[in-house]
């Protein structure tokens, strides 16, 4: 029997099945997938994503232990039972295409997910239905026929910014972005995660002999907030596509370097793809590996551990064993500390809730530049609303959200970075963390306007009239020189 052919037939059948989109509730295709995605990409994607095995297997890319059974029902009762089994047990019918087409005397091939194998076999035995195991382990066959399941998801010229990407693809994207925009973009190593993965940031810098100031933006500090890394990627793309044609971008790139960190919590992000979609923290082991994860946004050295946290590892807001206990936190903090005199703006992107948040979370005492911070945030929210009518709330974390200590944004402001904001992107709760991909574009478009409003304000403030801001050093030097020249001339 040609196992490989069977797998291929299964793939073709998968595609056909999904295109049909019948009444069955086992299949969860989404119309936009069919419209937007090429067939070969789609086949591989559906097969490798295993969308036909929901539940605990839906996030697992493996078919380990899944079996394909061959049955020839003999009686009408057997046909009925098999139809019932197929519908209720979420079995993957390979042949025929639909439960309705199961007939006595005809071949039936069904793929049974591993956890259900025994239960299904027991049920068949109970009903005196004989079966043969056609494929003992589907994953083995998949590995043979498709060694790199995701290899066809390369980043081609047209990287799709309107879908969510796993970490592997984001890494490849960063490399490619640097390669194809090397005059402007460099990729840098920031540090390592607890599971020893590399954290990279991208530096967008217009070559110039003028000293520049810095805008920092990080995304993906919380694993489940997928729209956040999607925005960082979108932002980079927009800047690179428009820096020659857009007057505002051109202007601020003369004076400002943009440092963009697409995914800060790399381990957590991967975990949310592979194991638990709603994971939030990093993957630091505690209590002898019986409990995992520190909330990185409670781990910074800003009134650490004082309010809005838990000291218990099982909590989603566990602040860690001490300020900067986590390597991810240290990687960011050490870098920003080093560059703090040049950083004018610190932005950190989260979801959901639709907020632009100002300092602080750990206290209701307003920051020294609160009026200006609020004014700029309101400008940004207004610009955002102008695009698609989305309304954002503006205010300090402690008054409009909740108390929290150890946040990166509080810490950035406390060490002297004047314009520090947290963004909470779409939506309001209807989809919460699982924002559908058809909202990626409108969310990114409107957020882009808000972020560029802030950058533009900062640029105009510190580099008025396009001139370089005089530092006190250069000012006193020019004063001295003018005195000297006046004296020489006299």
């Amino acid at each position: 029997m040609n196992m490989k052919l069977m797998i291929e037939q299964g793939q073709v059948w998968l595609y056909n099945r999904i295109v049909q989109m019948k009444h069955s509730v086992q299949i969860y295709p989404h119309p936009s997938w069919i419209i937007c995605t090429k067939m070969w990409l789609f086949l591989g994607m559906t097969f490798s994503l295993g969308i036909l095995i929901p539940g605990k297997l839906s996030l697992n890319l493996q078919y380990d232990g899944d079996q394909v059974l061959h049955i020839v029902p003999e009686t009408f009762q057997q046909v009925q039972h098999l139809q019932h089994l197929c519908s209720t047990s979420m079995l993957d019918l390979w042949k025929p295409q639909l439960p309705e087409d199961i007939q006595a005397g005809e071949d039936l091939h069904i793929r049974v997910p591993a956890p259900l194998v025994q239960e299904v076999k027991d049920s068949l035995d109970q009903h005196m239905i004989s079966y043969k195991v056609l494929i003992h382990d589907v994953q083995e066959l998949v590995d043979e026929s498709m060694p790199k399941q995701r290899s066809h998801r390369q980043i081609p010229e047209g990287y799709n910014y309107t879908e969510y990407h796993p970490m592997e693809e984001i890494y490849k994207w960063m490399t490619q972005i640097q390669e194809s925009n090397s005059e402007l973009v460099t990729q840098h190593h920031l540090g390592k995660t607890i599971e020893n993965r590399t954290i990279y940031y991208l530096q967008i810098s217009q070559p110039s002999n003028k000293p520049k100031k810095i805008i920092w933006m990080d995304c993906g500090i919380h694993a489940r907030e997928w729209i956040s890394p999607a925005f960082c990627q979108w932002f980079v793309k927009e800047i690179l596509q428009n820096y020659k044609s857009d007057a505002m971008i051109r202007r601020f790139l003369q004076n400002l370097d943009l440092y963009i960190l697409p995914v800060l919590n790399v381990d957590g992000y991967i975990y949310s793809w592979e194991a638990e979609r709603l994971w939030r923290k990093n993957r630091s082991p505690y209590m002898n590996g019986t409990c995992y994860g520190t909330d990185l946004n409670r781990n910074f050295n800003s009134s650490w551990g004082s309010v809005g946290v838990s000291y218990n590892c099982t909590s989603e807001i566990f602040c860690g064993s001490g300020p900067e206990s986590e390597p991810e936190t240290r990687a960011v903090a050490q870098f920003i500390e080093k560059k703090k005199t040049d950083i004018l703006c610190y932005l950190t992107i989260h979801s959901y809730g639709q907020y632009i948040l100002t300092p602080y979370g750990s206290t209701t005492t307003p920051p020294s530049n609160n009026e200006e911070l609020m004014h700029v945030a309101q400008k940004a929210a207004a610009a955002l609303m102008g695009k698609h009518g989305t309304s954002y709330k503006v205010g300090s974390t402690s008054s409009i959200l909740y108390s929290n200590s150890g946040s990166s944004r509080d810490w950035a402001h406390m060490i002297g970075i004047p314009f520090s904001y947290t963004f909470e992107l779409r939506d309001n709760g209807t989809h919460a963390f699982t924002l559908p991909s058809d909202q990626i574009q409108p969310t990114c478009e409107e957020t882009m306007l808000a972020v560029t409003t802030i950058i533009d304000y900062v640029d105009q403030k510190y580099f008025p009239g396009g001139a370089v801001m005089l530092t006190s050093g250069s000012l006193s030097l020019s004063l001295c020189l003018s005195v000297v020249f006046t004296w020489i001339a006299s």
Partner: protein
Amino acid sequence: MLGGATVVRRRRRRRRAAPGPLLPTPPLPAAGGDSPAVPGRPPRPSMSQGPSPAAELPPSHCLPGRAAALAAAFIAWRRGSPGRGPALRALSRARRQDIDDVGHKYHLEFVLEDIFEKDSTVNCTAEVLYHLGNKNAAPDVQFTIEGELKNTDEADNLFYNRIKSLKNELVAENVPDSYGNVPPEMEPIRALAWAASGYVIWQNSTENTKYQLAQIKHVKQVKRSDEYLEFDYKILLHENVSQEIIPWQMTVLWHPQHGTEVTQNSRQPQHV
């Protein structure tokens, strides 16, 4: 079962969420002008015997925000159906009264949208009273919807007949999926979960919590001999203040004329 603007008193004792971490209630904006977030607002009156007059609050403040989320969840339960999922779009106005020995009462004006039709909006007012004394009592909620919600009789009846005529019980998992997708045939199942979770959220809310339905992990229809549809749901609730994802089981009864009833619900253990 369902009526117009309803006054709902304390129901049966409901499950409390496990004690949370250090979470003080953020103070309200101070009187006068020292809080830039509230320019020009009337000063907060001092506490006296009996209920204080209602003080205006910025709608962006977290406390009225939580009350509005609770009111919206309550309305979702009372007015939701497989064809309709009322959700909070924006809070326009909020006032608060501190009633000595009773609790905190919020007067809210907000806009609702539909989870499946964002452009379908309606204005609402509500009063939410959080009880000071008995922390285990659900807050009292009264609401008024200005105008009419869209008629969903056709969609509801279609769903009812579809489920009634299924040969095998409906079973589904992960709605929405990781990518936020909900297949069209699952939308009514999701809307029903949205309505039922409104009840669970109402029963378990305090001034320090803000719940949201995050996902349906599993749903299974339970066939009944009477006219009701019954579903057993396992859902995930997201609690915004503690950031916890809380698994919850609920048994839901629905009928086009009788609305949504949660006959049984219980918090499930979180796996580490």
